[in-house]
């Protein structure tokens, strides 16, 4: 199934608001927790209590320093997971058909039963969205919580990705980009959501909302003193202030 569908009915994906993300890593462990027992094999850890722990995670939160030309440096937290690209190179490189993009909703998935663990799809992904699980030898990636979003065993309101459900600041939004009226489409339009590394030609579905302008020069006029306190003393000030009520 390494041919990409010509078009998908829906374009499900995430909007991540970089103006709001505080970098708490909640989405990281919520994702790990859900997917450790959900779709496919568990997300293994190597040397979990050892000198060199490592493990499989489907979502990681970076933290960048950004230096504007004429203002204080900023720190911007930056979650990174699969962007469910429309032109997903990770799909077309897969020799087994394990990697595929779903025709109905555009979710890019790995069929673990068919995955030989060659790692090629991870090479092909510019975004580092795929991690080969060292215990199981199969490729792991964000499933967009395909086993939650349609899950009839879950209450309606819980049919959203684990990372979105847990994000304490509400910096993550899930929805259908094919529907211009969806929340994700509207947010993208209103806040000028952008795609990562467009030059890679992958046409990501996920969008990031840019941080709002920070540390802007003050617009409000500075406070004008009521009067010259040095000249009038406290009494003059009291008169002026209390005269007002």
């Amino acid at each position, binding site marked *: *199934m390494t041919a990409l569908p010509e078009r998908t009915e829906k374009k499900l994906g995430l909007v991540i*608001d970089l*103006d*709001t993300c*505080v970098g*708490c*890593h*909640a989405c*990281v*462990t*919520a994702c*790990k*927790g859900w997917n450790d*027992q959900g779709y496919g094999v568990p997300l*293994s*850890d190597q040397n*979990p*209590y*050892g000198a*060199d*722990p490592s493990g499989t995670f489907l979502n990681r939160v970076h933290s960048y*320093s950004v230096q504007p030309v004429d203002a*204080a*440096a900023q*720190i*911007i*937290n930056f979650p990174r997971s699969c962007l469910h690209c429309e032109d997903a190179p990770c799909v077309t490189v897969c020799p087994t*058909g394990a990697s595929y993009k779903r*025709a109905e909703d555009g979710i890019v*998935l790995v*069929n673990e039963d068919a995955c030989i663990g060659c790692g090629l799809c991870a090479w092909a992904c510019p975004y580092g969205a795929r991690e080969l699980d060292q215990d199981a030898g199969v490729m792991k990636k964000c499933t967009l919580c395909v*086993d939650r*979003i*349609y*899950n*009839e*065993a879950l209450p309606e309101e819980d049919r959203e990705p684990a990372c979105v*459900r*847990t994000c*304490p*600041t*509400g*910096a993550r939004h899930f929805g259908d980009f094919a529907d211009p009226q969806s929340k994700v489409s509207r947010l993208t339009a209103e806040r000028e959501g952008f795609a990562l590394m467009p030059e890679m030609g992958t046409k990501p579905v996920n969008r990031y909302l840019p941080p*709002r302008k*920070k*540390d802007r020069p*003050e617009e*409000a*006029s*500075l*406070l004008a*003193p009521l009067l010259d*306190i040095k000249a009038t003393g*406290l009494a003059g*000030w*009291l008169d*002026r202030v*209390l005269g*007002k*009520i």
Partner: protein
Amino acid sequence: MGQPKVETSPKVSDEVRKTTCYMCACRCGINVHLTSGKVTYIEGNRDHPVNKGVLCAKGASGIMQVTAPSRLRAPLRRVGPRGSGAFEEISWEEALATAVSWLKPLREEAPEKLAFFTGRDQSQSFTGWWAQQFGTPNYAAHGGFCSVNMAAAGIYTIGGAFWEFGQPDWAHTKLFVLFGVAEDHDSNPIKIGIGKLKARGAKVVGVNPVRTGYNAVADEWVGITPGTDGLLILSLIHCLLQAGKIDLDYLARWTNAPLLVNATEGPEKGLILKNAESQPFVIDKRTGMPAPWDGAGVQPDLGAVWQGHRTVFQHMAERYLGEEYAPEAVAARCGVPAGRIRSLAAELARVAFDEAFELPIAWTDFRGDRHESMTGRPVSFHAMRGISAHSNGFQTARALHLLQILLGTVEVPGGYRLKPPYPKPVEAHPTPHFVAAPGKPLSGPHLGYVRGPENLALKEDGTPWRIDKGFTWENPFSAHGLMHMVIPNAHAGDPYKVDTLFLYMANMSWNSSMNSARVMEMLTDKGPDGDYVIPRIIYSDAYASEMVAYADLILPDTTYLERHDCISLLDRPISEPDAAGDAIRWPVVEADRDVRGFQSVLLDLGVRLGLPGMTNPDGTAKFKDYADYIVNHIRRPGVGPLIGFRGADGQAEGRGEANPDQLARYIENGGFYQAHVPEGAQYMKPWNAAYQDWAVATSFYETPQPYLFSIWSEPMRKFQLAAEGHGFLQPPDYLRERLKLAMDPLPVWYPPLGEAAAEGFPVHAITQRPMAMYHSWGSQNAWLRQIHGKNYLYLPTAIWEGQGFAEGDYARVTSPTGEIVVPVAHMAALNPDTVWTWNAIGKRRGAWALDQGAPEANQGFLLNHLISELLPGEGRVSNSDPVTGQAAWFDLRVRIEKVGPQERSEPAFDVLPQVVPKGRARA
């Protein structure tokens, strides 16, 4: 080949059990999924008032806490030298018998020889009560090293605090200013709140030397120099006063601004002027004559002068209009340009006054005056340890409350709102109780709010009653005790020696102590008689922490999913501004080891010791276990640990007899209960008659307690008077000047106390809470330790480039107390005179069932080794706030020198022998 069929509706689990998270003090509601009897998934409880479904990184990895290999497995008795980690497993019977054999004689002879301190305890109303029954004055929890500055400054000023006891009106606020907060106890509520502001496009300002986390998303960052917030805030007040941008109506009605300050020279000078009935009074603008402060229709005159006595308002204005508070005068000291201060003041004023709004909520105040609406001032503040963990933190927090009051933005729509049982004036709190007598319980709770020198815990001879010297001239308002001083004082025998140190969940040989290396020595020091200077140590932990190795007897606790707990309105509840709330934990899985819930163990011990309250006259146990206590303990008539589902039919709220079904009803309800504040009572609570009546009905106090906010603090002035030589109780001379300075009845700023000794140490060194780690215990969590497995000291550009640091370098960090060598990294978004690191990532080798090569124990490090527990100078004075005894963690000053690349941090302590086997694979 077609597209594979994916099972999109798999069954999630067999069963969901709702309880309360314990990975931090936020106490979120969790849904614990069980499959075949095992915990398989944990998610947030959407109906829970605290977290509304969300979880943080720690909460979402709780499963790894419950399966951690570091869990203790059985009671342990020390068999080798202390600190060697040589233990033998013993039975509970032996363990309890041992404890009783140590404690019983103490109770009968000198109960104060037991020091019982309980760390980050969520059952303080119970553990405190136990200590009270035992009769020792030596009890407190962790508040003294945590944030008592916030708690005390809040209570003494507005009758409620920051910390988790209030929150901004997230729905209405338009400008939110955050002072010194990285995470706080209200982790998820603050994040949810910031998310709401962001969604509305409201403005967030972060005042913090470091721009991470909340400060990273702040629209404006004020990169202040540590320890100078008080000065910045008083300068903002200066600007607002100068421009007349203050809420005069609010000040006149709801604060002590119109009260008169006694101007007569002598022992009453500076106290609030009282009438013949000992009542403060105001001058009524309508008549120019004195009138009761709470009289109906009275219009207090802020500008009044009566027989030479001026109002608090005038004293305040006079002080802060002074040129020393002008932005230009404070800018360099604060590291904030004057223009920035002025524009922040302007922005505060603009939003508070130009964007004021009315909510059509009719209400009646305590004077009987009716109001048709409530005025909203959409400016709010929050602050935490960035201001409180300094030795000028109490006064800084008071300054911030003053700023809020001047803007009229406490308890109004859009402002800062307190959560029941707050607001609550000082008068509604107990005073401290401390008089120990052999075989007798204490006459009341240990901790309380001092009104004047007469409440100090001093013996006849002027020496402290308490081992931590709480409630003494050194720190009169130490409302949470000083846990950080217990070991140093017990070791020094100052004020006296203790016999048994009984600790519960506090890692005192490591990250919870100042000068940790020295504290480890104090714990193992022997006297000339060959006995340990601190003869006996009992400790309850759930995990193989660094502290375990230093105890003689270990009482292993369960993990949070395996026991009953009670999050009670009697100590730190889970209320919201609109609802009082409490919650429980219950064993959603059975413990698979020989461990017991600590509270149940305490009850068992209590019965064996024959403590009143928990023992029947025939010597049998009054409560089967903690669960039984939670349901059946009666603190005051009709009042118990939980407010929900009381009374025989479970219908009563707040007050009512015990209900045997109470826990079942809580479990059914998701593990929590909320009592909703009635319509019309949600704001203006200190003065709102409807709220006051509801608060009485719901058991927070026995009669309505309306009060005025204290701009001028009379209890403080009483201490100043004593320091000036008035009154019978007199401080020692070496503390007089410091009392005069620190106990100023109006907020003041003074340089952090360590400053004088910091000559040659030009750089401020602070720590921050990582959002994804909880103190020391996150490191045993296989998921979290992959995120934060080691820490760096972050250096500002000036130091990084100035000394030519490169990636991979280490630096020698020297303070007046010690020296460490640690890995460094560069950070541009940092105050140029500040370095910082994540708190408590560093571990001791061998602890927490981690490999000896663990990065936490080799590269990770603590700043604690650099922080002295004492101030230089006379009298073993603790390195704490002089008002409250709050540990001054962030006063630390250091010098930085480049060392170059290195393999590991220094100092490297010996490997702790492992008390549980090292963890290998994930369970």
